[in-house]
């Protein structure tokens, strides 16, 4: 970047160990990612525990917040999977709250966005796929693999279609993790770049640059609003896709 020097839009994603911990050659250091995961879980737990501890008939702010989130996730879940999908409610709710809280907390200045690390989102997506596979095979046995064999396909085309279905199934965790990671990464880089423009323009010394310096600032404000929307939306997308994939484990044969 021209003349910026100190402004590096990628720097915010660096992982720095806070407590070095390397037993048996494994790198198990407590990093800033781990710290922010702990913070996210602490915040979510505090909101939900405090919100559900009051049990007032007329709910206060936190209680109505947690009730709204509960009902939102529950209606999303039953909308996709029906009533019997409620047995997955704790799983989907945990994922939704973790992703939502880490997206929103990552928007605070100076914080660290856990979901902008692809290894975190990939681990979440792998967890979803592992639950789908384990539950589907445990409940339906070999019938679960009927998911890969669509009916009404002529015999000579069947091996090809099954191959495509298998690749399509493998691509699910890839796209699930890429979507969240990509949105978070791109949004934070864009915010940092536009913030950097303001600094560069103000530091350049030319009068014309002082005049146009507010423009990227306005855009950064607008982008922040967009990022709040994207943060909530990506958590919703992650939750609803988890429901769609879990629905395949519940009802594989269609």
């Amino acid at each position, binding site marked *: 970047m021209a003349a910026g020097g100190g402004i590096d839009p990628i720097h915010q994603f660096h992982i720095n160990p806070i407590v070095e911990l390397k037993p048996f050659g494994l790198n198990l250091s407590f990093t800033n990612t781990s710290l922010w995961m702990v913070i996210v879980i602490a915040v979510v737990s505090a909101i939900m525990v405090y919100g559900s501890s009051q049990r007032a008939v007329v709910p206060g702010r936190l209680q109505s917040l947690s009730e709204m989130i509960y009902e939102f996730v529950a209606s999303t879940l039953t909308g996709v999977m029906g009533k019997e999908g409620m047995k997955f409610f704790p799983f989907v709710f945990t994922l939704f709250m973790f992703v939502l809280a880490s997206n929103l907390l990552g928007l605070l200045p100076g914080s660290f966005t856990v979901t902008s690390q692809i290894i975190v989102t990939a681990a979440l997506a792998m967890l979803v796929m592992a639950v789908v596979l384990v539950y589907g095979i445990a409940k339906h046995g070999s019938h679960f693999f009927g998911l890969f064999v669509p*009916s009404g396909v002529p015999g000579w085309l069947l091996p090809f279609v099954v191959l495509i279905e298998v690749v399509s199934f493998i691509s699910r965790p890839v*796209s699930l993790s890429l979507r969240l990671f990509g949105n978070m990464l791109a949004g934070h880089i864009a915010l940092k770049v536009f913030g950097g423009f303001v600094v560069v323009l103000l530091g350049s010394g030319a009068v014309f640059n002082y005049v146009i310096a507010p423009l990227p600032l306005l855009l950064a404000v607008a982008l922040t609003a967009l990022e709040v929307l994207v943060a909530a939306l990506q958590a919703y997308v992650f939750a*609803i*896709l988890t429901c769609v994939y879990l629905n395949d484990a519940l009802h594989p044969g269609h």
Partner: protein
Amino acid sequence: MSEPDPNASDSELRARLGSLKSAIKRAEENEKPGASPVGEDKALAGAMSSGFRAATDLAGGIIAGALIGYLGDRWLGTSPFLLIAFLVIGTIAGFRSVYRLGSRPTSVSKRDPERD
């Protein structure tokens, strides 16, 4: 406190219940325009979620195919062939999942006889 005639209080209660029901109905009808923005928000979220889904399903199919092909090549030593083959298959899989995403909401009733 002496109890009044039970029948009289019954009809009185029924009248109160009826007036309450009509009041609730009126309140619900008043709230309907207030409730529709929530529905619109959810429709917007649904539309944007399927948009994001279509974009990344395509990319995900291609990347997954390339990954399978690359790892298979490294495992079997068949240098470029598995990569090329699975890249094509992954692209088809990506397009197929986008196609399925597009065809799902409109033709739910039409799809079932076609598939059986």
